[in-house]
């Protein structure tokens, strides 16, 4: 998708949201209705083919039901953009502004990074695949390695495959809402690098990060978004 197009879509979405703030409720209705129809007819073909569902099941940590639920969550963000059938593999991308407005993400200081890391274009605009991928990694079932890998990428603000001091400074500022003085921030970052840097190159590589994660057992439960 071209950039202009995407921008246009983003604008379009927002205008839509402004005019009709109740679209979420509508989406919910739609969801309920779909749930009903699903139980009635017992088929899921309206949205995905069984093969597609199988593929999603094999590639994420979700069950069919959860995949469908996530699909509706995704669709609720922009009901007019996302078709009700994915059989023809439509090329739909939701702009970051919509993804970031999800209840699960909207107050997260790292929401933009999360969206960027998981989106294929790196700018936070997500396809359904990216969306499922994101919540799969953030689900309870994902193993530590996978979580650590993506957490690393989230904290690696400049995408240079290392968490360097500037990345850490940004992290600290996000974590504390800029309440620390620059000296304090720099002190903290030095301490962190000092502690976690195993090979003394002055920045944290994935390995350093992994090593640290092992010793922080809470990470598994905190790097987790309930859906």
């Amino acid at each position, binding site marked *: 998708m071209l950039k202009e197009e995407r921008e246009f879509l983003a604008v379009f979405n927002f205008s839509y949201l402004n005019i009709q703030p109740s679209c979420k409720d509508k989406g919910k209705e739609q969801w309920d209705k779909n749930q009903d129809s699903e139980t009635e007819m017992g088929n899921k073909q309206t949205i995905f083919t069984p093969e597609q569902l199988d593929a999603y099941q094999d590639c994420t940590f979700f069950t069919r039901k959860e995949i469908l639920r996530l699909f509706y969550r995704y669709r609720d963000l922009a009901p007019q953009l996302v078709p009700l059938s994915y059989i023809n593999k439509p090329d739909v991308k939701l702009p970051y502004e919509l993804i970031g407005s999800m209840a699960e993400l909207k107050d997260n200081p790292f929401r933009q990074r999360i969206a960027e890391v998981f989106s294929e274009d790196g700018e936070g605009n997500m396809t359904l695949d990216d969306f499922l991928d994101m919540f799969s990694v953030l689900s309870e079932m994902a193993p530590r390695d996978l979580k650590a890998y993506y957490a690393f990428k989230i904290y690696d603000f400049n995408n240079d495959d290392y968490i360097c001091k500037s990345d850490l400074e940004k992290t600290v500022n996000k974590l504390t809402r800029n309440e620390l003085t620059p000296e304090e921030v720099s002190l903290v970052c030095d301490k962190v690098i000092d502690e976690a840097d195993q090979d003394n*190159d002055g920045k944290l590589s994935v390995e350093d990060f992994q090593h*640290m994660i092992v010793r922080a057992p809470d990470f598994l439960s905190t790097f987790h978004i309930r859906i």
Partner: protein
Amino acid sequence: MFYHDNEAFENPDYHYSETLEIDRSRERNSSFHQNLHDSSLDDDSLYDSYEGRSGRGQRNQDYPLAIPMASMQPGFQYSYSTSRSAMQHNTNPYGNPHTNPSFEYEPELAYTSPSFHAADGPYVRRSSDMSDGGSFSQRYNRRQADLVYRMPSSLLRLDSNAETYNEDKHKQEEKLIKNLASMSSRERIKAIQKTPKTMKEKRDIRNKVLMEKTKKSASYHTQINCCTQCLYKTALSYQQFKNGLSECWHLLQFWQKTLKVIGGKFGTSVLSYFVFLKWLLTFNIFSFLVNFSFITIPQLIVSGPNNLSFNGLELLSGAGYFKKTVLYYGFYTNSTITKTENNSSYNMRLAYIFTIGIYFIICFFSLVYSMAKSFRKNFINPHTYSGSAAKLLCIWDFNITNEKAVKLKQSNLSTQIKESLSEVTLEVLNLSLKQRIARIAVHLVVWVASLGIAAACCAGVYFLSRNNLQFLEGKKSELENEAATLVLPIVVSLLNLLVPFCFALFGLLEKFQYPRHQLYVTVIRNIFLKISIIGILCYYWLNDVATLEKECWESLVGQDIYRLIVIDFIFCLFGSFFGEFVRRIIGTKCCKKLGVPEFDIARNVLDLIYTQTLAWIGIFFAPLMPAVQIISFFIIFYVKKVSLMRNCQPPRKVWRASQMTTLFIFLLFFPSFTGVLAVMAVTIWRRMPSNQCGPFQGLTSIIDAVSGWIHILDSYSGSKWVVWIYRNLIGSVHFFFILTVIVLMITYLYWQIIEGRKIMVRLLHEQIINEGKDKMFLLNKLSALQTSKLGPPKGEQQERSSSLYQPSRQAALQMTASLERPFGRNGRDFYAESFSAGIPEKTGLSPADSEGHRPAISETLALALRARQQAEWEMQDDDDKDFRP
């Protein structure tokens, strides 16, 4: 002859003599020459050596010696080994001295670094699945392709690298697919799920693997027969069944939404309390189902009508009407229940003892399992746990979705960081001897005081209960009796409520250095108090009530436990009303300084453990106790939730949820569950069941029911094996003796293995540090080489190479000098310096220029250098962008 000298990196200083002993032992002299070649080659060999490192040694064999030969120069003499004996200790553990893995072709290949699995420990990695390694080695950036093409195209060499890289990637993918295809479907799915790639790539891989599979199975199809087809169908339907089951299981996970809301508002720490509560609730639901279906339903079939009156107070006291219901032990019959005439009967005695026994065995294993799992997850490496790094990068709770909670968390975090910064100076402060003694004395006094309080509580409870028993002996009115029975549970609950506050006050006196220690100490004191109260009550039940010769002592004990649970439940409700609601009113209206109360996770969890212990003891004396427990937990869940939402704020201190949960599960197992088992054992083996009631009336001890049954079985020839098992395994001391010895041996063996691994971990850690130093050294040398290389003029290749030798030699000397500086932080500074010197000259390194130098200067070095510089520039650019206002 200048060839050896040209190889600047062959400097004997390249490796430190402190390279690990274990490394040297793995020296591979046979491959020595080849390795030398590899290192001087283009980056094909880089991949090659990388492959070798990543545990896929066969790659090395894929590339025969022909590749090194290709770049062999005339006059190249294999004389290194003789002329440079210092090289002997150069070999690093991977047998490839010059290709530091962290050094290759950055930044893209940084992700392929094979030690991604470092988290799992190196041994795991070695034994881990091949395809796993394959998949992880492909952990590239999602935008890795961009990165490759972002390289300036003028760097021809790198372009061709990109090609080889793509080729290599392709090969890797093929390999991966092959590996995946050879796995079982479950493993394959797991492996695919674990791959950190976009959905599209994952799906591609999946489809390719499936294609591969069908191709393979197509070749088998010729000889397919009915049996395999049948098997396949069974497997398929099993798969479907499992899918359905897992969906059902997800439906069963109730309160998902409530938990999400709580997590969103209060974070993982408070959530852990509710998860624990839910876990206990499932325990109770399970035991209720078991007891109800195997004990209660058969009893209900035969039981007669209950003609006692019901007046409401029974709900509190558990006596009266309930005496003649299935709630208590005394109501169950000792007869066999026979509905049909044809011999099929249901022995109530056996049903009772086996149901409860099996329930306890299941409980035991599930507790051990969850405890072990929790320990494995959360205490992998507790010794090296260090605060701030992990604190900072792992602290953000992605669960939190509430705006207020996010703000609160952020401000809490900033105060915490400030505190920890001030602690840096505080920690250095050394206490004088006097102060230390004073501190130890305070600890001692407080410990003695708290133990004394606990002992006093126990003594009080014991005498109170004995007096109460004598009081009940006297002939009093029914109502008076029932009121008197309530005294004991109320006193116990009051003690449980008030004494912990006392302990909390002690904590203020003690002034622990770390809040963590205070928490642990308070938890230990509280659990000691609660368990000793339960212990003294058990002593009273088994020693005084059981020998009373009263009509039905088991039911009396059951009633006591019922009352304790109910009263404790009521106190819990009061606790959240007064402790949280009234406290909030005071905190917000009268005394603003107090503020909104925090949710005390430790106290609440300990309360849960206490009631659960009581319920476990009660299961034998009142088989439907789990039902009471279910109701009370259900109500507690909602009351606590509402109280939390209305009155509390998230805890300010860091609560290490997973470690604390582990501790609580352990506490639930060790004093609590094992204590219950001990009480059960005494009841079943040592106490005489009451004569007039219950399934075991008329026996001298409860276990006699089983031995009597075995005796009967003995006469049937078909069930000899049961008798044999009972006599030789369950009833035999020798068997348990041998079992214990074997278990102890295995434990000892594992302990030794763990010790060995600890040493291994330490050595490997040292090795990582050494590798880091190696990397630093190489980088320094490279940058020095870089600066000095700009000097020589362009000329004939040969000339250049000879002239290039000089600067590289200089660089080597420089490096030797730099080595004398201590590494570590200084080394890092040095690294930064040399790079800041090198970066401004980035335009000086024209690709054509370096292209010309290739035969002379090591290509590996040049390449790595360029890649490194590239990374530096990009980083700088990014940084500039980031910090631009």
